[in-house]
């Protein structure tokens, strides 16, 4: 009898001395080509945001009369026509009709665009964690009130609200940080809703109950027991919100609400559109900023796929290559039964 008891009590101790599970295993992303491509794109743009303004050959507002082609007036009443220069050795991406260097504008713009996107994403995620976790963990009237607030924000269309806010808040057109905060105010609700749902399901798990019974404070339980389990969902919500913020900032700039002092890709597109660059065939002016935004957005979305596949392993097998499937001994297109979930060995 006593040996059994001893055996029982000694089991956890033996388990505890077993090789420790890597501490941050929860953060390991699946090594799919999507995630790698996404990370490479993001790192590339992060680098661009840091060194872009430094390596830009000219100031984005520097003008030079030799940088435009002036076609003399025809006849008595004609006026001289100004044309931008197409890409050449001196101007790798050509010039604008205002005689600015497009490449310089593109490089300088990277910083503000990235700053607003990621700052707004971070601020909105922080807000959604605070609201979502509080609502989910505390419950009751607090939950009702906070859930109602996030649902109201979710139902009101974001961009029109953003436009109204940006056109009234003073100084919004000269401060990227202020713009980022305004974007965050309109973009936190979705994340709050998903995080609340997850907190709700974590709240009654045994390890949280155990912490509560052992007398830990709510704050400590939230920070040390609940939050670590929310990391993948919070990260996914961060990527999603950053993608939204990027689009919102560019749209505001395109509408002329983000000022003309801070260079960003939306402002470049706005100027190009205002001078009807697309219709005139000056592709080197409007295509590069649009392509940069699309590529950055694509990087964020690819990384988000990786996140989704991580949160829900059942989505993962589709990306399984034929070789991996054969090695794991499964049929790739099962006709009957469950989706195989495969954990690949860590590299």
């Amino acid at each position, binding site marked *: 009898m006593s040996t059994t008891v001893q055996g029982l009590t000694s089991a956890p101790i033996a388990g505890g001395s077993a090789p420790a599970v890597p501490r941050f295993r929860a953060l390991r992303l699946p090594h799919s080509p999507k995630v790698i491509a996404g990370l490479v794109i993001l790192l590339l743009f992060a680098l661009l945001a840091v060194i872009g303004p430094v390596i830009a050959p000219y100031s984005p507002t520097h003008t030079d009369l030799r940088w435009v082609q002036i076609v003399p007036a025809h006849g008595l009443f004609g006026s001289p026509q100004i044309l931008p220069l197409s890409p050449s050795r001196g101007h790798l991406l050509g010039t604008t009709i205002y005689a600015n260097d497009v490449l310089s504008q593109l490089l300088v713009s990277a910083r503000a665009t990235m700053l607003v996107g990621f700052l707004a994403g971070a601020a909105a995620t922080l807000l959604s964690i605070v609201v979502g976790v509080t609502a989910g963990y505390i419950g009751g009237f607090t939950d009702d009130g906070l859930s109602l607030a996030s649902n109201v924000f979710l139902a009101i269309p974001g961009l029109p609200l953003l436009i109204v806010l940006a056109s009234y808040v003073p100084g919004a057109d000269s401060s990227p940080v202020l713009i980022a905060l305004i974007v965050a105010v309109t973009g936190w609700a979705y994340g709050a809703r998903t995080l609340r749902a997850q907190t709700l399901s974590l709240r009654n798990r045994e390890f949280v109950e155990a912490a509560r019974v052992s007398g830990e404070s709510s704050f400590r339980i939230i920070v040390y027991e609940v939050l670590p389990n929310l990391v993948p969902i919070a990260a996914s919500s961060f990527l999603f919100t950053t993608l939204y913020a990027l689009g919102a900032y560019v749209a505001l700039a395109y509408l002329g609400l983000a000022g003309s002092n801070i260079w960003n890709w939306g402002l470049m597109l706005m100027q190009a559109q205002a001078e009807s660059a697309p219709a005139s065939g000056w592709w080197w002016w409007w295509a590069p900023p649009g392509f940069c935004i699309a590529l950055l957005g694509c990087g964020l979305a*690819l990384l988000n796929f990786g996140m989704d596949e991580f949160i829900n392993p*059942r989505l993962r097998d589709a990306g399984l290559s034929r070789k991996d499937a054969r090695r794991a001994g499964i049929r790739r297109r099962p006709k009957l039964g469950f989706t195989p979930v495969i954990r690949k060995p860590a590299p």
Partner: protein
Amino acid sequence: MRVLLRRLGFYLLAAWVALTVNFFLPRLVPGNPVATAIGHLTFVNAQVVDAIKAQFGVGINDSIWIQYVHYWGDLIHGNLGVSWGNSFEPVTSLIGAALPWTLGLLGVATVVSFLLGTFIGIGLGWMRSPWLDWLIPGATFFQAIPYFFLGTVLLMAFATGLHWFPISQGYQTTGVESVTPGLNWAYLVSLIDHGVLPASTIVLTSIAGWMLGMRNMMVITMDEDFVLVARAKGLPARKVVWYAARNAILPSVANFSLAISLVVAGQLLVEIVFSYPGIGYLLFHAVTNQDYPMVQGIFLVITLVVLLANFLADIVYVSLDPRVRQEA
């Protein structure tokens, strides 16, 4: 029925919040930008000046609560003030003229995108081949492109370049091919001709969301016991997919509210690119001219339209899912 009443109550609350923000924002912002803008205007007569000042609470001695009551009185009478940018025409009539264009384009584009995206999503969830799955990142590339940039690219390729479609506006208004609005063949053809490119832009950018959501939900539903039973009974694959798809579509309908607000935002920008005579084009001019009554009126109308669309989606959801009806 009780579920729907509760949802209706929620949307009324959301509308109240939006309208109240609309009222307080110009009054609470430091250094009232509206007052400055009014100073720059040249007025036709003193009556208009008084009306505008009353609308934004500039130089008014009434308490803010009395102003709030007046604001609601104006709203109920459909009075949204006059537009500064359009020779002081009433905002309501300008929006009323633009709204059918926006609603038509939005409706067609959303329905096409939802149906197409859902069907492709079902296919992807069913077949699950790694090759087909690369279709999703491909579609996401379109989703990540700013709406107005994709619009510009399509405009360049198919209108300016290939001359397949017209460059701007909602129907042919000038030249020998101009048509008169009404129920005639030429007008309808012109309408469709002008709508194809803007609608394609919206469909291309919004389809990835439906596709991905449906595909993920299909993958999860295919593992449910009832699908297993359906297969074990030897039902044809077509029927099994139908069982799974019917259940997998629910979250897509439930997420409609999030999607519609993104689509509306995109549509506003697309209209600007194609000079489409809808709300977005109005909004662009209102923002450029600092036409505050117009900006506020448009915000109000778009919010109400989106809330109404959400409510319609809820009706669909409640009629699709009996569990929701049971809860009430």
